[in-house]
């Protein structure tokens, strides 16, 4: 296949970026999208030019590091697919493809197609965990968990933290990411005790990290490579209101009791 690639090149967050055009004449439909970029990069290197910076690691759709906006779609045209799982057979001979980094206020560009997504880790630091230390825990089967809840929690926990939801959202919102973590933990009895405190802190954390608000576009769900449902956002909104209605002293005391 012949492919024309317009790839975004940008030195760093404070520099201006622009597209660079490359022609690839010998693309196999069995290649993954990243393998196609590998071919381009090896060619650039052989010409003594600096290759296009992009991230990848597991190359099987689970680590969440690959993150390309492909002709305007986060992770490209296939539904439920990460960039590294996308194959060139999804494109046609002669296609022109635009490749850009995630664009969001909370994800500054590091180089070319690589952005800094540490803001997502900082949202997790606001309570995206169960506060148990190693050792002092009950026997695993001492608490039964209804299979439906465990399955639903797993649906939410499948998030790979790639940030496609943020990149796809016109507001750069991290609602789907945050809601998925909240749902994962609150659907399980182990995550319940801290639920109110967690939801308040994570929602505030999300705002503090510069993520935008949700105005129900639903783009996040479309872009999500793990098909995580926006139902979780609705659940988060309901739960957040409930948590906010807790008597003021209770919630602020809870907040202080790190």
């Amino acid at each position, binding site marked *: 296949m012949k492919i024309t690639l317009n790839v975004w090149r940008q030195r760093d967050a404070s520099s201006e970026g622009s597209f660079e055009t490359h022609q690839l004449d010998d693309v*196999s439909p*069995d*290649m*993954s999208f990243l*393998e*196609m970029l*590998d*071919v381009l990069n*090896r060619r*650039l*290197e*052989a010409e003594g030019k*600096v*290759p296009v*910076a992009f*991230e990848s*690691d*597991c*190359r*099987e759709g*689970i*680590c*969440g*590091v690959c993150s390309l906006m492909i002709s305007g779609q986060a992770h490209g045209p296939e539904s439920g697919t990460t960039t590294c*799982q996308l*194959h060139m057979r999804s494109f046609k001979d002669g296609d022109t493809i635009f490749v850009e980094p995630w664009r969001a206020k909370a994800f500054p560009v*590091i180089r070319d197609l*690589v952005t*800094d*997504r*540490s803001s*997502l*880790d900082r949202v*997790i*630091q*606001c309570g*995206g*965990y*169960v*506060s*148990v*230390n*190693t*050792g002092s*825990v*009950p026997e*695993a*089967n001492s608490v*039964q*968990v*209804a*299979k439906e809840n*465990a399955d639903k929690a*797993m649906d939410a*926990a*499948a998030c*790979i*933290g790639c940030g496609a939801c943020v990149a796809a959202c016109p507001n750069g919102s991290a609602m789907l990411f945050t809601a998925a973590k909240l749902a*994962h933990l609150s659907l399980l009895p*182990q995550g319940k005790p801290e639920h109110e405190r967690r939801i308040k802190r994570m929602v505030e954390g999300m705002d503090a990290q510069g993520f935008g608000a949700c105005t129900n576009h639903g783009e996040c769900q479309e872009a999500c490579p793990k098909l995580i449902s926006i139902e979780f956002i609705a659940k988060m909104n309901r739960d957040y209101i409930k948590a906010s209605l807790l008597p003021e002293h209770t919630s602020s005391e809870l907040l202080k009791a790190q």
Partner: protein
Amino acid sequence: MELNARIPAGPIEKKWDKHRFEMKLVNPANKRKYSVIVVGTGLAGASAAASMAELGYQVKSFCYQDSPRRAHSIAAQGGINAAKNYQNDGDSIYRLFYDTVKGGDFRAREANVYRLAQVSVNIIDQCVAQGVPFAREYGGLLANRSFGGAQVSRTFYARGQTGQQLLLGAYQALERQISAGRVKMFPHTEMLDVVVAGGRARGIVVRDLKTGRITSHAADAVVLATGGYSPVYYLSTNAVGCNVTATYRAYRRGAGFANPAFTQIHPTCIPVSGDHQSKLTLMSESLRNDGRIWVPKEKGDGRPANQIPESDRDYYLERRYPSFGNLSPRDVASRAAKERCDAGYGVGPGGLGVYLDFADAIQRHGRKVIEERYGNLFEMYQRITDENPYEVPMRIYPAPHYAMGGLWVDYNLMSTVPGLFVLGEANFSDHGANRLGASALMQGLADGYFIIPNTIGDFLARNAPGGISEDAPEFAAVTDEVQQRLNRLVSLKGRRTVDSFHRELGKIMWDRCGMGRNAQGLREALQRIPALREEFWKDAIVTGEKEDYNQSLERAGRVADFLEFAELMCLDALNREESCGGHFREEYQTAEGEAQRDDQNFCHAAVWEFKGAGNAPQRHIEPLNFEYVQLTQRSYK
């Protein structure tokens, strides 16, 4: 090099308790005076960093990815073993211990394996408490599945994403400690060397991958949990960034490297499709619970799989190993696939493939059940191959997957360099010459949650905190060496891409130090690798600047280390004149083509000591004594 395994005396089931009692403790008020560096945030590193911070130590944690959550452990699919005996099918700590020692073909240390089986039960408790959404039965209790090399059902799982869920549990525990200020996290940071001062590991030198800046970090102890080195074969099931740099650099600073030739070739991976390929994708071993492996009985039978009648199929694992059948251990299953393909019965392009067939299981349980069990794996397969495994059997072939070899450690998980501890896949550990499925996750979490938090205290309690800073001359000397090496790399302006060197190395290793090895092939590899390395240092191309975000330089550094390390692997394979587990020396096999051990001469771990660049490394041995599991010819018939 002294190899004192420090195995506690006493009966095997009492050793760990006794040892915990005998170890020195650091007083709770003093813990915060000690600092610990943990390199790696996979299951081993994240669980260790979080648990040690909970105890009160000051922890610094490093990983090369942009977030600790992306460590390669995230990709583990099938499950984690634990001797819970929830299925009432005869499992016990002793049986898990026995299966692991036997599965490893009697090349692991009994005391360590027993402890691993003991703490396996605590791991599941811990993970459930963290909110890991393990699969459950309708009654609300935890579900299990079976894995290879065992006749009990002891594997816990979270769909096909067990590693992801376990790692998210450990990562969240780590983030909790980061937010509490007890762990300082350095993502996007690659460790390039260890600093040894006063006979102890006192810190590391790292490169910030975003800026290229080199800094050093001093501490009271250094923990490496940097994973495995399968990408030495170029194509493997590992993440493309997995590397040997951290452990190889530690080896060059005095840490013994044990059994580097012990690598696991996993039987069920999607076959190679072309030259462009950058990695191979695993199809979890759990599929062998329901999938049946076969090839046509007739050589070169060109009919589509579905048109080959039952009578013309050879279910060779069921035929050769009737009691374990499709659940034979990995080394056995991989070799059997290679044997059939080498003999001309393979299927698919180049005849390098065998069928993994779900037709029977779909008929027995219905498509929905199979979808629930393996849906994401089937999808992954279809996405890569464009074939639908619900309708046609999968085609699979073995691929490099796991490193049993690693830095030698004693019972406390300390290497031969005092104060340098090694956890998870990075150490040589508990799996001997062949790891059983679902046991790496178990070992990583055992090391990180339950062993190192105890054993590091014993080391620290014997050494006063502090006493060295990054200004010490030892740090300056190592930093200088690191800088020089980077200068050399970045000035490489030859004609060949780093990637092409890596591919060529991978091919040498796969052909000569892969599933089958022999003296002649290994000797050839030992000639070709140094020549390739020399060419690399003359003719490789590295673009960009040193003090900058530079992926070209990152890769070059890793490949340069593989080019040295590969030689050590071949040397180890050549010196071990026996077959055991995944190390199959073609000269040493039984009449039926099984691995033939030589317990007289090789019942030991081989530990290599670096003797300076250009000098041959020295081989030491740690003899292995089997008091509980009798040394026998492994049989899965």
